């Protein structure tokens, strides 16, 4: 299908519109809630929750005989919650570290879920058809009432997020300080984790238990690259998640039975890769540029200090010019002496008195002196960097 056709279908195809709306709403909710999971370093918890939800889906179906979405979602939420409690319990009452606890719960619950699902599918009734789509998700199975459920519950979750914004921020940044202020941080933690569970189980039908955590983590990780503000990050993650949801669902729905989950995750991952590469400030490209600039400046400073040393040998007049070859020799034959001289000339710290003979300028002398004074960097920026180096490692317990 061509792009024009896809766009046309989105406008006029009722089913496709339903699916796109559901997946978009889901992506927005998961993306926004995912920010807190990512910032609290709980990305793996999302994975454990979604996998732990699988037996809940199977059991809910077995007990009620219904495959209405609210029933299955409720079962998933309960199982996801129980899995989370198990993780917290294991961490608290044993010496097993959190990542191992997450791994154990994830695989045990997922294994039980698979067994139940297999059992369900062997039963000779037709009602179970489609339960296996919960593994990898199938947005095409979304009904209008499913979408309404996603939108409705998702809106409540986002509303609660906005309402308890301050408390959630406090929990995420400095939990102990919150306790000292008198907030019941355990309850706030339970509320936030519940919202995360809700956001995850809402997406199981569309994205599937295996990949749902990607829709929680990826938009948040991408959004973090672009901003230093929590509110902007949450909104941006919601938007990116929504885009990933809509795009993935559409590609899947029109692409001949490709599962939705992997498609959505691929789109979300593409967003992450682009963000990691080109985001200003935190992106890889801007990091490389920054490193290149620092290296160029350091090299120029080295040549400047050489010029300064030469000028010092010739008394303070400084106007004595020196051949590039001398500087290159002092530079231990490293390439780029001439380029560094160019940088110095640009800044007015050195000048080419005659072809291939350079001298330090009075401004260059000033600059060279500050190079040798500890802490006298440019407008304190250097001093800051220095200070960051001595951040104490935690101190005592």
């Amino acid at each position, binding site marked *: 299908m061509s792009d024009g056709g896809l766009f046309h279908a989105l406008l006029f195809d009722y089913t496709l519109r339903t699916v796109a709306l559901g997946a978009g709403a889901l992506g927005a909710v998961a993306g926004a809630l995912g920010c807190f999971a990512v910032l609290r370093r709980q990305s793996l918890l999302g994975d454990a929750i979604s996998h732990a939800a699988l037996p809940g889906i199977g059991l809910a179906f077995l007990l009620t005989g219904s495959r209405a979405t609210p029933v299955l979602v409720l079962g998933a939420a309960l199982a996801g919650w129980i899995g989370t409690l198990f993780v917290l319990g294991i961490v608290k009452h044993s010496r097993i570290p959190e990542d191992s606890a997450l791994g154990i719960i994830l695989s045990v619950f997922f294994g039980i879920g698979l067994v139940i699902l297999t059992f369900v599918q062997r039963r000779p009734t037709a009602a179970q058809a489609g339960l296996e789509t919960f593994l990898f998700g199938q947005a095409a199975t979304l009904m209008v009432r499913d979408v309404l459920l996603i939108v409705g519950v998702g809106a409540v979750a986002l509303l609660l997020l906005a309402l308890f914004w301050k408390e959630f921020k406090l929990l995420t940044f400095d939990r102990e300080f919150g306790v000292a202020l008198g907030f019941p941080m355990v309850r706030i933690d339970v509320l936030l984790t519940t919202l995360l569970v809700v956001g995850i189980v809402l997406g199981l039908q569309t994205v599937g238990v295996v990949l749902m955590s990607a829709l929680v983590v990826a938009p948040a990780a991408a959004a973090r690259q672009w901003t230093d503000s929590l509110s902007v*990050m949450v909104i941006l993650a919601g938007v990116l998640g929504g885009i990933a949801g809509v795009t993935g669902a559409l590609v899947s729905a029109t692409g001949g039975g490709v599962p939705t989950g992997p498609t959505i995750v691929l789109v979300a991952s593409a967003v992450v890769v682009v963000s990691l590469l080109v985001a200003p400030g935190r992106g890889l490209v801007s990091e490389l540029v920054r490193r290149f600039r620092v290296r160029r400046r350091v090299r120029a400073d080295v040549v400047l200090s050489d010029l300064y040393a030469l000028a010092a040998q010739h008394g303070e007049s400084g106007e004595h010019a020196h051949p590039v070859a001398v500087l290159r020799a002092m530079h231990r034959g490293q390439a780029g002496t001439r380029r560094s001289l160019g940088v110095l000339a640009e800044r007015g710290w050195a000048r080419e008195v005659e072809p291939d003979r350079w001298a330090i300028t009075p401004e260059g002398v000033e600059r060279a002196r500050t190079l040798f004074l500890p802490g006298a960097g440019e407008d304190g920026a250097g*001093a800051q960097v220095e200070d960051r180096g001595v951040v104490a490692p935690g*101190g005592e317990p």
Partner: protein
Amino acid sequence: MIRRESGAPVPAIEVNDLTVAYGEQPVLWDIDLTIRQGVLTAIVGPNGAGKTTLIKAILELVPRAAGRVEVLGRPYRDARGEVAYVPQRGSVDWDFPTSVLDVVLMGTYGRLGWIRRPGRRERREAMQALEKVGMEAFADRQISQLSGGQQQRVFLARALVQEARIHLMDEPFQGVDARTEKAIVEVLRELRARGDTVVCVHHALQTVREYFDEVALLNVRMIAAGPVDEAFTEPNLRLAYGGRVPFLQGVTGFEAPGGGP
């Protein structure tokens, strides 16, 4: 100053028989400590002595195995609004996406209670606190761009907007630059001047005499506590620090003129 009916001032913090254990290992053993109102007190002791734990136990951040803590004559829970807390700088992730002003505003959260957001008044108070620590120019800065000393001053400002009368600080001088150290000392003296009480976990023995009025020497047990002149003596330090004393020469300020600060 808060006084009893008899007219005697109530201690800012009164710790009785406090014991804290992590697992089976006692970290604090049978601690008695009285901290007077309006003085600067240093908690000093070797690594692992339980200094941080003592502060956290007062704040009910770690469970007490036994013991009682009273703040201004009341249980801590009833006097929470009177106590501000400056945690160790390394206890949070400074790459968190937020601004300096936002972190300082967290000091007002306790007063605001549930759901209510900081408003114009809180912002103004936060800016004033930032001015006190010389960080007003950094209000909109992302916190990951701060140096260690600047981070410490932001934490101090956050405690200042708590509008408390008792300030518990965990290693405020740890790894900070000279300018920050000076700024913090000035703030501590201002707090004392208006009658506030400050308790600092402190590492640098050579500055105890200069910065603090009273000292509590701790090593799981309380070794000595009281005015610096009486408690901060070489025998007591020897008791607190065990065999590792050579470096103590001169720090108590008694041994030689000019040896101490």
